[in-house]
């Protein structure tokens, strides 16, 4: 190989490395000292299925107000529902070994959300205080929907200008010192708002202080790397609509294997290919076949 080829290969190598560094995924910064994630402790033994949280949520978010009269509730709670592009939170009723149990379902505000990792434009963001919020620079690719293990983000398919809709832990109200809309109206304190540390402590305290009342597991403590909605239950969680096969690996970690390979491919592939192209070149009589502009190596050592 002559000087020229050597410099070409080194140059492309360094250029790739410099460019590739931009692509190495950086771990998210730890929260600023003094900042903690906030969340909600959901004690399903206290929930009476009145659905006032659904009404409260709709009121503070300008969504259609659900009818939560006794008779309507009877019908609505017959089959488990999902959140929709019009309802950020819903109550489901499950018949269990301990009788009927009511469970509020909404965004879990994961510690390391899959939706945030999936978003190409940072429309889905995990705020420093733990809230996972959606913003209008979204392009509507719906990868957040595919990446959420709880199937929470909902797309407004019927609109020409659709948004992604989900609970945002009342981010705007939080910044005005107010409680989330659901927590504020819950009559039985089934919903408790606080820092994740506080609500986790409270959950463990309740379990320890009431042996036999609760299953000794807080759903969301470790699931998918931990979430900010933590659930207490009197029965195993599979009986009240929770999946027990989601694992404890934070969802973004499933993509990091591929992402870490990217800089290597960006550096190694061009070098290997340039090397192969140079290596397969015939030294004699190949001038005509050479790219115009690339001088031959005859006598250029």
């Amino acid at each position: 190989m002559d000087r020229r080829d050597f410099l070409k290969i080194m140059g492309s190598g360094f250029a790739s490395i410099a460019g590739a560094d931009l692509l190495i995924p950086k771990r998210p910064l730890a929260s600023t000292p003094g900042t903690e994630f906030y969340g909600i402790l959901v004690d399903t033994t206290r929930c009476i299925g009145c659905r006032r949280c659904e009404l409260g949520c709709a009121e503070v978010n300008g969504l259609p107000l659900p009818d939560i009269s006794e008779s309507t509730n009877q019908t609505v709670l017959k089959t488990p529902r999902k959140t929709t592009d019009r309802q950020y939170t819903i109550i489901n009723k499950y018949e269990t070994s301990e009788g009927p149990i009511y469970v509020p379902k909404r965004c879990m505000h994961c510690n390391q959300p899959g939706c945030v990792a999936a978003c190409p434009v940072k429309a889905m963001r995990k705020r420093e205080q733990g809230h996972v919020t959606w913003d209008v620079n979204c392009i509507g690719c719906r990868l957040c929907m595919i990446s959420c293990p709880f199937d929470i983000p909902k797309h407004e398919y019927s609109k020409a200008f659709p948004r992604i809709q989900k609970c945002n832990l009342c981010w705007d109200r939080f910044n005005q010192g107010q409680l989330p809309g659901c927590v504020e109206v819950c009559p039985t304190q089934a919903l408790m708002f606080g820092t994740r540390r506080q609500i986790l402590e409270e959950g463990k305290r309740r379990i320890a202080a009431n042996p036999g009342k609760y299953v000794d597991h807080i759903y969301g403590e470790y699931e998918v790397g931990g979430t900010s909605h933590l659930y207490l239950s009197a029965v195993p969680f599979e009986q009240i609509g929770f999946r027990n096969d989601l694992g404890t690996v934070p969802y973004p970690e499933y993509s990091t294997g591929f992402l870490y390979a990217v800089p290597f491919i960006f550096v190694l592939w061009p070098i290997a290919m340039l090397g192969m192209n140079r290596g397969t070149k015939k030294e004699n009589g190949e001038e005509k076949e050479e790219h115009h502009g690339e001088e031959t190596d005859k006598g250029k050592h």
Partner: protein
Amino acid sequence: MAGEKLETVAVAAEKAESPKIKSFGDFIDFLKKELKPEGSIATPFNIISLPIMLLGYVFIVLRLASGLGKPITNLSQQYPWGLWIGFDVVTGVAFAGGAYVLCFIVYILRAEKYHPIIRATVLNGFLAYLFYAGAIVLDIGRWWNIYNPMVGNNFGVNAVMFLVAWHFFLYMLAELVEFSPAIAEWLGARKARKILGAMTLGAVIFGITLSTLHQSGLGALMMMAKSKIHPLWYTEFIPILYFVSSIFAGLSLVIFEGSISHKVFAYQLDEHHKEQYNDILVGLSRICAVVMFGYFFLKILLVVHGHAVKYINTPMGYWWLLEMIGFVLVPCFAFLRGAQREDTALIKFAAIITMIGIILNRLNYTFIAYNWYVPLSEKYWPTPIELTVTASIILTEIWVFRWMVRRMPVLREPPAWAKAMGHD
């Protein structure tokens, strides 16, 4: 296409002379002349394709005006991705993989045997990304924000989708550079042809690197759907499976499309090219057979390693066996047999079966093996509108391809002045 049968070698030779374009006005005149249809417009293909294309354009306007809801698409909260992403974009990009594979073979490994089809393949690849990756604009809900991954200060740099978006864009540019010598020859722009020819190797190396990453990247998009994709398909190595399968997906399309082009544009091919084409088919067939066998073995390995063998004796398992045996193993052996016997009919058959297998595979990841446990009444099926728009996009791409192959030196020999400059 009766028009082609009328064209003579003399007319083709006349085209090989460069047009005299000295100003923008000249260029417009030249373009107008080139856009005039050459033969009969009312060919069977045109009569069938044009109404579908026009209907598709109407539906596209409807989609933009009213959103993605029914009856435009059957997308739902459980199935956010359907035909447009799963087939147009993801499968389309796999099929376009022939371009990077063939560029690697011709420009990096210098296997001159395949040189005659390189331009048609690169053109196909470029148009595929232009149209199919362009179809993304149709599918995303907030399409007016499409430029957001490209410009601004909100780059989701840790997101696989961000990487895929950039790669599609850069790869389109690389392929345009790779194909641009043919455009320069068409315009008679000798200076441009010289410069662009010198950029080919760089564009090829850049393109192959990008392709490796975005072919595997499309698979990486599904990594966080672990709880939703059936264990016989889900593995940490989905990106590698997508990359490996893009090799034989792309080459199968090259065989399929090449067979059609070589018949339709036979008048452009000299005897030498026609003789070589059989050798090319046999060579591609061998490559496909080897890669497909490796892919099959890899799949088995991953299923065993992932403790998913027990799922094979279930309905979804039978579906998986159908995809793996019927549409990977069978065409693999057909390619092998076809290459051994130089049986081009068998090779073409193998290519079609392989392509169906790729479609099945990609659609499995998008909405069949994805959320496979959802009850039948809630499952996703494409609407007639989705199917029409997809057909319209593909047919439009074929029309553009046809126009370019007719007017530019893609299959026919480049003009003498360009050949003197050397390798394109």
